[in-house]
């Protein structure tokens, strides 16, 4: 394990320019999202029905809407800033939920084998074959809509992906000599799983998590499009775009602003995820 981390540290000393740029962008987005309530010029829910669908730079009664207004006259800049927090929050929380559940179950299945493995992997089959959209509609129908329910839905549909990876990796790692040595020296299952197996399977899991992060953001916007996402009047980038769809001709900024931000965010995460995978995957080392 130490060898791997040392190799990682050696390689990060020579970071390519793109990684620096995109991690900065990502950090910037996160900081802006956290600071939104302090730096946003307006109340995100303050409507101005007489100033609907106005272009960026529009001034009305002494206020300037730097990025324009939406279909209820609310400031787009403000809503985009607040929306960053919502979209990031949904993505981070659902990745955390699904990875915690998924990895734990995967490790348990890969380590204990037998009935544990059978039951867990069959549940994985079951959950993966229920279409995500169906699960989303039904969860909302039964439990009602809302931010946390959305996180629950996304978490519920995605955990099996982590399980499959964790399971396969655990199977491979479990047979390595040093693991057997630990077992023989009397270490309990919990200790082995958390201290020895988890760090060794962390690489591929991290790669899945970064890919999933981008996907969660896209899925949130897709669910908002279908009316199942964030409750109005809260904004997420997905829900702002889903409304802005109808105004592409008349008020294209409503789609463009959150769309560009969403694109930047997912792009950055994907670039970093790619780089991360290249670093952690010994096969793709450059010659």
């Amino acid at each position: 394990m130490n060898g791997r981390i040392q190799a990682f540290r050696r390689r990060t000393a020579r970071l390519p320019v793109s990684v620096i740029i995109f991690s900065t962008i990502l950090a910037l987005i996160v900081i802006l999202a956290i600071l939104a309530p302090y730096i946003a010029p307006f109340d995100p829910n303050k409507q101005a029905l007489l100033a609907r669908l106005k272009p960026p730079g529009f001034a009305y009664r002494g206020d300037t809407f730097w990025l324009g207004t939406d279909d209820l006259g609310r400031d787009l800049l403000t809503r985009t800033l607040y929306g960053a927090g919502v979209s990031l929050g949904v993505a981070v929380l659902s990745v955390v939920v699904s990875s915690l559940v998924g990895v734990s179950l995967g490790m348990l299945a890969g380590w204990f084998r037998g009935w544990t493995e059978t039951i867990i992997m069959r549940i994985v089959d079951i959950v993966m074959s229920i279409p995500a959209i169906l699960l989303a509609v039904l969860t909302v129908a039964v439990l009602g809509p809302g931010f946390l329910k959305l996180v629950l839905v996304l978490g519920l549909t995605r955990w099996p992906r982590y399980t499959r990876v964790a399971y396969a990796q655990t199977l491979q790692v479990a047979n390595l000599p040093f693991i057997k040595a630990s077992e023989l020296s009397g270490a309990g299952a919990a200790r082995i799983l958390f201290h020895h197996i988890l760090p060794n399977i962390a690489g591929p899991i991290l790669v899945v998590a970064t890919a999933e992060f981008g996907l969660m953001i896209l899925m949130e916007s897709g669910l908002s499009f279908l009316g199942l996402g964030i409750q109005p009047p809260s904004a997420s980038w997905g829900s702002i775009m889903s409304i802005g769809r109808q105004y592409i001709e008349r008020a294209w900024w409503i789609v463009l602003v959150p769309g560009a931000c969403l694109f930047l965010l997912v792009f950055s995460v994907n670039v970093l995820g790619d780089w991360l995978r290249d670093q952690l995957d010994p096969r793709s080392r450059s010659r």
Partner: protein
Amino acid sequence: MLQYVAQRLLQAIIAIFGVLTIVFVVMHLSGDPTLLLVPQDASAEMIAQLRSQLGFDRPIGVQYLDYLGGLAHLDFGDSIVQRVPALDIVLSRLPYTIQLAAGALVVAIGLGIPAGILMATNRGGMIARILSAVVVTGQSVPTFLSGILLIFIFGVTLRWLPTSGSGSLAAMIMPSIALGALSMSTFARMTRISIIDELGKDYVRAGRARGLSMAQVVVRHVLRNASIPVITIAALEIGNLLAGAVIIETVFAWPGIGQLAIQSIQSRDFLVVQVIVLLISFVYVLTSVLADLVYVAVDPRIRLVR
């Protein structure tokens, strides 16, 4: 081995049953279609009467057993909304989704694999960087947005392609691109990684030492070896495509089972939803079983049970 296969198949059947039951229960928990069927001036008694006529006032256990009984004779029931057999409705719309998935795969593979090859052989160069950017872009745009942008640009403004519908090959272009963009990235990256893998192997150096050009080595040997993991990915991507099809079909008025699923869920047309879920879970569980069998055959260590 045979015992393992039999066990796996049995588990697969149980899994499919599990899906059916869960979906059945959750759907019934969320209500029934009666309220959506009646005119707005219906009285509470009328609604209760219709509910009773349609059988939704029976205890859920009874309804479930009834449904299973029908399944035993391969009777999937009639759609409450359309009053025709649910299976017929799903089967009539299935070819459209398959066409769309095929079109999306063509886009994903046709663009993704060459991109991956170039990214691998041109590693670190300008072309690779640009392609990387394009590939990641395909993964970073929500499908409903790319869909509506495509319609607006190529349909309304340029008038090159039809804005909706499924009546012609031209109508298939935009939905396939919108749907395939996401998978294209996966194929590109997978191809790139496998080729890079292969390029590091001895036979490549041997080939170059014998005087073959890089292109010749790639075409003659590398591509063939690199294709194995790519084929595995293709099978998994089909599942992802079916999921993404839901939004694309709605935006482009493409009459596949994605659109049907959404409409049936929203109108609580239970039996149609059950057929769709059954179909998807069957396909999925089957691929899962096959994947496991391949895995066990390939890596003997896995068979050892602790």
